[in-house]
Each structure stands twice: as C-alpha cells, then as structure tokens.
C-alpha cells in the first residue's frame, strides 16, 4: 500500500523513491510500503514510517537515510514511527516484488501458500535463480528476521525467501 503522495511535490517524491532498504539495495522504501504518510509545510516535512519487524535494525538507518535525502534537497524532516496499522508484506508493490526476485530474494507468497511452504515443506516457492519450484525450506529463519532460508534442488543454490507477514 503505497502512501498517497499525489499532493506532494515531485522532487520530494523523487528523493523518497531513491531511498532504498539498506539490506536490499534494489528495494525502495516506497515500494516496501513503509512510508505511510507525508506532510509538507514550507521546508519542513513530517513523515510517518511503519516498522517491518519490531526488531528490524535497519529501521533506524532507513529513518536517517530519509532525513539525509530530504536534507539534500533543502527540507528538514521529522520522522514518526507508527505501529498501527501493522505493516504487512501485502504492502510491498509489484515493482518491489520484482526487484526482490531480480536481486535473488524470493518474494512473499499469500498467507496460505506461505504456510504450506514453511510448515508443510511444500515445493512451491520459485527459485530466484532458475525459476524452478523444486525448492524446499531449510530454516524459517534466514539472514535477517524477515527472511527464511531455502534451497533449490534443481540448480542446487540456496536463496532467501521473504516471509509473508500478515
């Protein structure tokens, strides 16, 4: 769910769309759906950011990156973290999902399919390398809190899968 930025100055939107997830440098914060609301008054911006995982250590970096990006075009920013409504992977845009796969991270499935893959070990997650679905979960906890570790039995590569959070 991308924030409604239709009333925001294009150069601000442009600056925001060039702030990326520190861990996944191809995924912009707008495409991740973590920027909830932007309010601009003169050269002052108030921006609401919602955390992905509660313990995500990248959130503070994201906030700092946003402040720096807007500072470079002359705006002073105040970031407010909002917990509700809670972030869900549903808010990742289509463009975001494609960016994940291009980067080598399998994008989140629906809640039901996610459970099938993680809990029942069903082979349904497409490998970001070779696209085969002959894949299986190795661990529900991957390189970061938001990802699980998978292995492709066709190309034999391991890969991270972005877990469905709903």
């Amino acid at each position, binding site marked *: 769910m991308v924030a409604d930025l239709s009333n925001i100055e294009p150069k601000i939107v442009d600056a925001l769309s060039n702030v990326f997830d520190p861990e996944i440098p191809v995924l912009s914060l707008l495409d991740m759906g973590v920027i909830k609301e932007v309010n601009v008054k003169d050269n002052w911006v108030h921006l609401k950011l919602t*955390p992905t*995982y*509660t*313990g995500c250590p990248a959130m503070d970096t994201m906030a700092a990156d946003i402040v720096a990006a807007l500072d470079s075009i002359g705006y002073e920013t105040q970031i407010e973290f909002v917990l*509700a409504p809670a*972030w869900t992977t549903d808010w990742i845009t289509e463009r975001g999902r494609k960016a994940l796969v291009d980067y080598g991270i399998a994008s989140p499935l629906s809640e039901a399919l996610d459970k099938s893959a993680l809990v029942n070990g069903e082979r349904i997650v497409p490998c970001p390398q070779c696209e085969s679905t002959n894949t299986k979960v190795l*661990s529900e*906890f991957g390189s970061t*809190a938001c990802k699980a570790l998978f292995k492709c039995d066709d190309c034999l590569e391991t890969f991270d899968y972005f877990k469905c*959070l709903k």
Partner: protein
Amino acid sequence: MIIAHRLSELCGHGPSLETDIALTNISLDLFGQVRNFFQYAAELGAEGETEDSIAFLRLEREYSSSVILEQPNTDFAHIIIRQYLFDVFQLMQLEHLAKSNDDRIVAIANKSIKETKYHKRFSEAWIMRLGLGTELSNNKMQSALEHLYPFHGELFRPTDIEIDADLNGYGINPERLKERYQTEIAETFSSAGLTIPNTPERMANGKTGIHSEHMGAILSSLQYMQRAYPNMQW
C-alpha cells in the same frame, strides 16, 4: 528482555548455523518488542527516563522478569524447553493485550503477535523433533523439562500491577491463561514423548524483584557498557 539477552549469548555459539541464526533472529524480534514497550514506558514514566535507562540502568530488584527466563543456556534442550514454555505464554498474553483499552498496547501487541507465532512454531517443532528423535535426544529433553518446568508457575502468579491492569482493562491477569496453557503444553509434551514432571514448584519471585543467582551475571553483562560509558549511543 532477559530471555532475549539469553538468546543473544548464543550468537556464534549455536549448535548449527541454522539454529544459531534462528535463535538470534528470535532474540532480535524480542528486543524489538521490548523496545516498543520500554519506549512507551519511558513516555509515561518519570522525567528523563528513556528506553535505555529502563533497559540498562535499573538495579537488580527493579527488574520484574520471571526467574525461568534467567535460566542458563545449559544445552540446546534447555534452550528449546525454556523458549517453548515462554512462547506459548507470550502468544496467549499478547492475544489478550491486543484487546486492551490502551491503543498503544494494542498496536504493540498486534505487531508482536505476527512474529511470536514464528517463534512458537520454531520451539514447538524442535520439541517434537528432539522428543521423538533418539533415546539420547529424548533423555536430554526430559532432563531439561525436569529442570525448567518447576519454574513456569511464576508466569501465572499475578503481581499487584497485573491485577490492577486487568481490572482497569489495559492488561491481563496471567492467572486467566493458566488452564489453557497447561492443556496446550500437556498435549505437546505428550505428543513428543516427554513426561511432565511431578515435582514441587521452585521458589521463583522474579516478578517481585527477587531474582535467582543467575541474574547477577546477566546484569553485569547487560549493563556493563552503559555503566562504563554513561549515555553511550550506537
């Protein structure tokens, strides 16, 4: 926070790469939840209180964590049993807090529930794997259960604050969770080929600030940096 700290001690020391990463991910999630609660507490608290002062600068008897969470990372069986006994409780407690009349608590709870479900799935799956594994794994799990089970009762003994919170609609008296909890864990342990011990409850009053001998070591590690370099920031 105390159990998150115990899990953090495993960073680089887990029994396997995947379990090391899983346990430290769980630790990170829990620290995130703690931060949310402590930030709120700091806002409501005395002038000058911050999430850091609450986390790092209290004296031992000012921590109100349950004694079971201080128990050491003796072996993987202990880590898993401790985690499971906590996860089942944590999920039930959060589900109730999600109905609190305090919006902030509701928001924190709803966020935390999503992650805690993953934690419980992890610990429960290992209970089954190790309980039904080999004779050795079953023995180690049984031994861990016998050490840790007698501490779990404290989770359900309400403090005055919890009683007050329940009466005023913003929290939950954990006593109300006990029966459902006992039923759930009994079923899991039975399915995993483990026997719930019939030993008396251990003395545990961490919630009123009387901690076990382990707390000293935990706090000296947890608090060292803030006390050695006051107000240090990452």
